[in-house]
């Protein structure tokens, strides 16, 4: 599949944003984070900026973005519509939670309920994002039981490193948050490695023979393409560049997102406040970069069954 940059940026940024929002919604009411309004404001601004920035960037890949308002209507059948509904609902509940924290410095009672509901909404939004891909039967690498867990764990892990960065900059760090961020990063990448092993060993159910039904005559190969120039299907679903360098790109993603980010979180915890905060911010940036490369590979390594009709040209 051709990596659509707006969609890659969207899932990475809004994943981190909703992950951070979920952590704030749970840890705030549990009184595990500083209750003062400036901390709340900074952390919620980062969460909203990532989530909203991601959602806005997702509209860049629409051909007729003015009709995006209809996208909230088909939640009965469509995961993309469910994602839209869940994200807006979550933003509204999180807005109430933010009012409590920032204006009244209150995260208990009814405000806590708003926090917990925004955490649930954030999780539902990320599950919907993952299901958009996991529901697509023609793409073997996407219709995999590990796709949704990977989306959830990366949202949690990137949310946690961003929370760690905000805590380190504004509150001089918190060992529990740093430890949690390292555990979440490790868990996310462990499941991602398992996912990569699965897609490397799996095989597509469909072949050029089943796509044409001509297997009874022998092996099937394309003799003449239906058109001389590339069409929409080939531009959208054919992609070879990243597949060529997949092994190196996987290493780059894992080294940036785990190999460098996790030790930097640890350094942020152990070093004194000033340099510690710098390390924590770099950890958040590198973890996000790692997920960006991982998302790019998620597209580039995915093969759509339509390529079977264009084998040799697109494979």
């Amino acid at each position: 599949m051709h990596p659509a940059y707006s969609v890659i940026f969207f899932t990475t940024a809004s994943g981190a944003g909703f992950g951070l929002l979920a952590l704030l919604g749970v840890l705030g009411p549990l009184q595990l984070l500083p209750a003062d309004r400036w901390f709340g404001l900074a952390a919620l601004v980062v969460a909203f900026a990532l989530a909203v920035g991601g959602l806005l960037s997702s509209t860049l890949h629409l051909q007729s973005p003015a009709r995006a308002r209809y996208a909230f209507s088909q939640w009965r059948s469509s995961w993309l519509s469910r994602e839209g509904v869940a994200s807006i609902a979550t933003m509204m509940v999180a807005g109430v939670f933010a009012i409590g924290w920032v204006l009244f410095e209150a995260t208990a009672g009814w405000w806590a309920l708003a926090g917990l509901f925004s955490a649930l909404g954030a999780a539902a939004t990320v599950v919907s994002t993952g299901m958009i891909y996991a529901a697509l039967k023609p793409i073997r690498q996407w219709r995999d039981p590990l796709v949704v867990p990977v989306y959830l764990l990366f949202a949690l892990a990137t949310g946690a490193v961003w929370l760690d960065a905000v805590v380190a900059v504004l509150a001089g760090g918190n060992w529990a948050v740093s430890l949690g961020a390292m555990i979440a990063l490790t868990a996310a990448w462990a499941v991602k490695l398992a996912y990569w092993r699965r897609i490397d060993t799996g095989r597509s159910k469909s072949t050029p023979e089943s796509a044409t039904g001509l297997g009874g005559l022998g092996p099937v190969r394309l003799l003449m393409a239906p058109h001389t120039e590339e069409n929409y299907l080939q531009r959208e679903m054919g992609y070879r560049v990243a597949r060529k360098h997949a092994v190196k790109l996987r290493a780059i993603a894992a080294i940036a997102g785990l190999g460098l980010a996790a030790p930097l979180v640890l350094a942020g915890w152990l070093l004194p406040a000033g340099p510690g905060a710098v390390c924590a911010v770099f950890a958040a940036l590198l973890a996000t970069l790692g997920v960006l490369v991982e998302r790019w590979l998620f597209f580039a390594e995915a093969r759509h069954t339509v390529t079977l009709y264009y084998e040799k040209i697109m494979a």
Partner: protein
Amino acid sequence: MTSLPEHPSATKLGLVIDLDTCVGCHACVVNCKEWNTGGYPAPLTDQNPYGRDVSGAWLNRVHTFEAGEGAEGRTVHFPKSCLHCEEPLCVTVCPTGASYKRGEDGIVLVDEDRCMGCGLCAWACPYGAREMDMGVGVMKKCTLCIDRIYNENLEEADRVPACVATCPASARHFGDLGDPNSEVSKLVAERGGYDLMPEQGYRPTNKYLPPRPRRDATAAGTAPKALEEASPEGGFLGWVDKLLSAV
């Protein structure tokens, strides 16, 4: 409404495509474009149509495959358009309600006034039946020529999809595949019509008829006779060859 019809009628309009008689002339491709760029999904735009890197939305394409090895190999022209599936994932993934399947005849359509051009339906189709119209910004697909098949302004004989009307080899047939007694259903039964990629579970309505077996199955396996030797040894030809070579 992108949920599938709860009580679909027994009627399943669709095409039967005969891979034995298709000659790969692309007339169906051209007539499809011609009709539909002025019909229901109009306009069906092209980008840079007279320059380099021509591109555009087409609803029907003819691929050409080779099947089998050596003397047993066959060239098969393979027309492909929307198969109007009974389990169309392209419909249920649509977030806006633009994509829908009609309950009364099973035709899968796009309401272009609601399509936001996200492209998810094209990803959901295993067959590559949908193409984004980059000039209009909405997804286009085969309508089974809904503006011909029910069009009372046309002669009854012309109330078939444009691709079927134009095919010079009669390789395309249109009818109700939900009715076991229809001409198309009989054709499918008689010729062993099949589904494309049944393993994907979309239950396509359109059926394909396989190429017929060769009339003389043994002839295909026999190598053509070799030519006579250019420099024969002995015999009359040897004598002539020797004589003429010496002159």
